[in-house]
């Protein structure tokens, strides 16, 4: 099943049943369906920190990253969207 591409206006949040542990600034996540582990570091971890139990728009995540890093908006948007699509495919985030 292919999910529709995410847009900047999409509202995303952590999936309620996401199984993860934070260790030394790293995030280790378990996809409980496949029993596979994923490691998320650096900016990926920062994006995860910006997500919560209530939906936020992808645009607001991109805006905050643009304040923190010297990166052009198009690249940033594209990479954030691709990262969140990955998290969604592992059922770590949900789109509302």
């Amino acid at each position, binding site marked *: 099943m292919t999910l529709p591409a995410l847009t900047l206006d999409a509202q995303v949040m952590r999936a309620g049943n996401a199984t993860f*542990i934070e*260790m030394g600034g790293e995030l280790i996540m378990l996809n409980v369906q496949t029993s596979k582990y994923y*490691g998320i*570091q650096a900016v990926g971890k920062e994006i995860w920190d910006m997500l919560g139990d209530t939906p936020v728009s992808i645009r607001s995540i991109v805006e905050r990253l643009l304040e923190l890093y010297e990166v052009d908006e198009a690249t940033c948007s594209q990479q954030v969207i691709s990262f969140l699509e990955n998290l969604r495919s592992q059922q770590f985030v949900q789109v509302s």
Partner: protein
Amino acid sequence: MFYYTLYSLLIESTIALPELLAVGSDHKPASDVQVVLDRERQYTLPDEKTRSAYLLDIPTIGRYFISGGNSIIMQPEPDTSDKTNRVYLLGTAFAMLLYQRGLLPFHASSVETPHGAVLIAGQSGVGKSTTAAALQRLRGFRLIADDVSVAYAQDGYPYVVPAYPQVKLWDQSLNMLGMNTDRFERLTNSDDKFAVPLTHSFRDQPMQIAALYVILPMEISQIHLMQISYAEKVLLLQRQIYRGALMREISEDVLPFDLMTAFLKHVRIARIYRPLQGNSLDAMLELIEQSLIN
């Protein structure tokens, strides 16, 4: 009937298993595991490969049916010696049984140190048993398990359970440790690998795990210890699971989340690169002891 303890389980066996710790005949509570030898093939072993019932079929050696986490029926080939049969029983067959019981076997030897249990992991031939034997002989640390170390998590902490008081060593390792091969029995008739009993220096109680080192031989001149990220630790842990491919055949859920987090939180996990050539055993022991106190 023979009674033994192995991995903190009471084993009831129709054949003698001299490697294991025997339990006196005066107190025999209900056994946890039954081991049955069926040379006459009285049982028809079902060709099942599920988590609860698994037929382990090893060509030219024999068939082992492991079920319910409490039973192993062995049908060795006529040419398979008792010794060889026990190698497969106590290795792969028991690993599968433990897995059925929710315990996780790692391909590692382990010893008791003043800082907690230390697991020495790695592929066959990297020096797990030799390192464990050296820690026992040269530092006086008692053995907990050789080759297969079984772990579980309790209240968020990881523990290793004792196996049996024996290390399996190649003749070169025995020589390196100043031990004479004449004194020990060959593991199988074909190998230069010997069974070294360590009954006098064996810890028979579970112990909290302090460290796990994965040994990797490389084309380098000096041994060194490599710290790794947590993500790499998770990968490394998964790769040290004993017969991992076999386990994944029957279930995806091999490394449970609670055990994984217990390891990440409480265990030093690192790689030790050692030179392919030469004897780096002394350096290895120093490196491990240094790492434990840092």
